[in-house]
């Protein structure tokens, strides 16, 4: 039987400009530091495209951006943010403050309101007052400052865990005591690593590798990062805010 | 559109249902009683697909009556509600299922407690202090959350019911005009003029 379906009517082709590339990102703010992390698996459907595609990027010595969703849009968006930050540096001879970067990202995302970057952004870093900060965005630029946020494929697995461990939700402090508003860096790193090993265990799109960016406020001691194996410094100078990256393996199955 | 409400109080259950019988956008009848008295201390408000409702309600009514005649005592509210629920649940997986939503309210004369059950056409049953079906439920459930008192007097219960009915009349575009209100307590079933 010849294929007669072509005779049935005009054939239509549809181009889908978006894809979903899996992975998960996460950021937690401390009193004088911020941790931003993401896994490095990039997938489409059941296929793994690469086991090492970074989703977390250093923007300045005090700002780190994690992007998750459609990888092509994510990479292009980071490229454009970096470009805008370089122009700012040339015009003003300094790095853009974190809260200004957050507002810049909002305008850049909303500029594409009717053909959005299919990307969830989490911006982490150090505010001008020296405090750790996390800004989370939706694809069209709605954003808010928070203490912690997870996004991506395993958001639903990680976020309630963070509610419990960072915000102490559903936990009652001992009489006369209160929960800390910010955790020490070593605790935060443990929670981040636990979150990703858990997500790797139960979500097929999460795994392969983990990249954890640590941003320290100006003048903060290296307490909490000293002696960490595989720690790499990314900052341009030692007397300002400092950025470190920590790489860990995750299960590859 | 069809609305039914019910609530429990101290030793009584109030059941209210609108009196309109509609087909499409036309009101065919405005004095239909859609609350059946199944046994001396048991009420059932029914709503849903026209045709299904009366057929199903009469089927239930006669079977509950049959039980009463055979055993000389009626089914207690818990047992009656369970049996009615099962009838709906079995109907759901048949070729033609009944699309009927129910509020079953009764007074258990054995342990002297009021009981109210919310039952939908799927056979979902919930034991509740107050309940509603239809568009009126959006107003009634929030109002009764605020104003319902499980230990309230009949007057208090009627006040809460009035709030639900009045709000539905005020805010619902397709609100029904009239309701029948019945109460069941230790003395049996009575019709109440709101």
């Amino acid at each position, binding site marked *: 039987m010849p294929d007669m379906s072509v005779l049935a009517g005009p054939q239509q082709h549809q181009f889908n400009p978006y894809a979903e590339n899996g992975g998960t990102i996460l950021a937690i703010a401390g009193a004088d530091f911020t941790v931003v992390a993401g896994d490095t698996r990039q997938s489409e459907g059941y296929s793994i495209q690469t086991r090492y595609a970074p989703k977390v990027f250093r923007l300045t010595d005090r700002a780190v951006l994690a992007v998750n969703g459609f990888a092509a849009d994510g990479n292009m968006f980071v490229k454009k943010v970096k470009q805008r930050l370089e122009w700012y540096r040339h015009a003003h001879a300094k790095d853009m403050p974190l809260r200004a970067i957050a507002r810049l990202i909002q305008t850049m995302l909303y500029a594409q309101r009717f053909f959005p970057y299919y990307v969830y952004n989490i911006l982490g870093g150090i505010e001008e007052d020296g405090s750790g900060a996390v800004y989370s965005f939706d694809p069209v630029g709605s954003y808010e400052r928070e203490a912690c946020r997870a996004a991506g494929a395993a958001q*639903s*697995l990680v976020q309630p865990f963070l509610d419990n461990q960072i915000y102490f939700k559903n936990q009652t402090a001992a009489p006369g005591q209160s929960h800390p508003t910010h955790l020490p860096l070593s605790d935060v790193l443990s929670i981040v690593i636990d979150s990703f090993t858990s997500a790797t265990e139960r979500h097929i799109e999460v795994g392969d590798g983990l990249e954890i960016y640590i941003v320290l406020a100006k003048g903060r001691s290296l307490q909490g990062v000293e002696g960490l194996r595989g720690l790499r410094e990314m900052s341009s100078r030692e007397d300002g805010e400092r950025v470190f990256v920590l790489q860990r393996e995750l299960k590859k199955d | 559109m069809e609305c039914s409400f019910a609530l429990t109080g101290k030793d009584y259950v109030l059941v209210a249902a609108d009196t309109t019988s509609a087909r499409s956008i036309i009101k065919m009848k405005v004095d239909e009683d859609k609350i059946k008295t199944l046994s001396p201390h048991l009420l059932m408000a029914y709503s849903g697909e026209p045709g299904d409702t009366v057929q199903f309600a009469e089927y239930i009514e006669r079977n509950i009556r049959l039980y009463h005649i055979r055993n000389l005592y009626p089914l207690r509210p818990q047992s009656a509600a369970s049996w009615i629920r*099962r009838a709906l649940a079995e109907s759901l997986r048949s070729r033609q299922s009944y699309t009927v939503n129910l509020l079953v309210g009764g007074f258990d004369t054995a342990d002297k407690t009021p009981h109210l059950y919310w039952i939908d056409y799927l056979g979902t049953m*919930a034991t509740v202090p107050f309940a509603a079906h239809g568009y009126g439920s959006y107003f009634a459930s929030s109002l009764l959350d605020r104003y319902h008192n499980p230990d309230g007097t009949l007057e208090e219960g009627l006040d809460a019911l009035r709030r639900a009915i009045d709000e539905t009349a005020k805010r619902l575009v397709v609100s029904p005009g009239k309701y029948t209100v019945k109460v069941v307590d230790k003395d049996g079933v009575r019709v109440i003029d709101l």
Partner: protein
Amino acid sequence: MSIMDHNGGSVIAMAGKDCVAIASDLRLGAGAQTIAMNFEKVFPVTDRLYMGLPGLATDVITLREKFRYLTNMFHIKESRPLQPSTFAHLLSSTLYERRFGPYFCEPVLAGLELTPSGTYQPYIAGTDLIGCLNFAKDFIVAGTASDKLFGVAEGLWEPDLGPEDLFETISQTLLNSVDRDAYSGWGAIVHVITADKVVTRTLKGRMD
């Protein structure tokens, strides 16, 4: 929205050291509207076996009644205790009987199995809606918050927890998971089963 999500609700079971725990939320909804906040989804099967039934509420009630009947018949006919592993296969075959018109529930089991040496061993299991058994050694989750439960349980659970620690772990897991799920929550109930007793506690939760 799937039929399985119509009424909302979640269940979780966890294994500990010589104990198991099973818990559910208390919400019953009809889509986004909440109908009742006292709808338990965990039911006793024997003194040392509980079954959680999240899913379509009409089938939750029907299956609860069906398995009460089947376990009663087992006791009458066999006059011996019903073991969790036996019940798991009864559950599986009963669900598979309706392979092409299933009950829309995903049962979860938690109990203690009698070993030949006379001791009790933790036993948890879950099935899908057509009875495909899943024997996990750590925890089983099901319901509208299952993805959240997986994430939190994977982070909080550890092997060989005693009854009190297991209670705290399962409670924290359930409460924090249902708080991120619009279709589950409105309080919870937790059963901790040990060889000599079952401790049942009702938990308050967020009401939004």
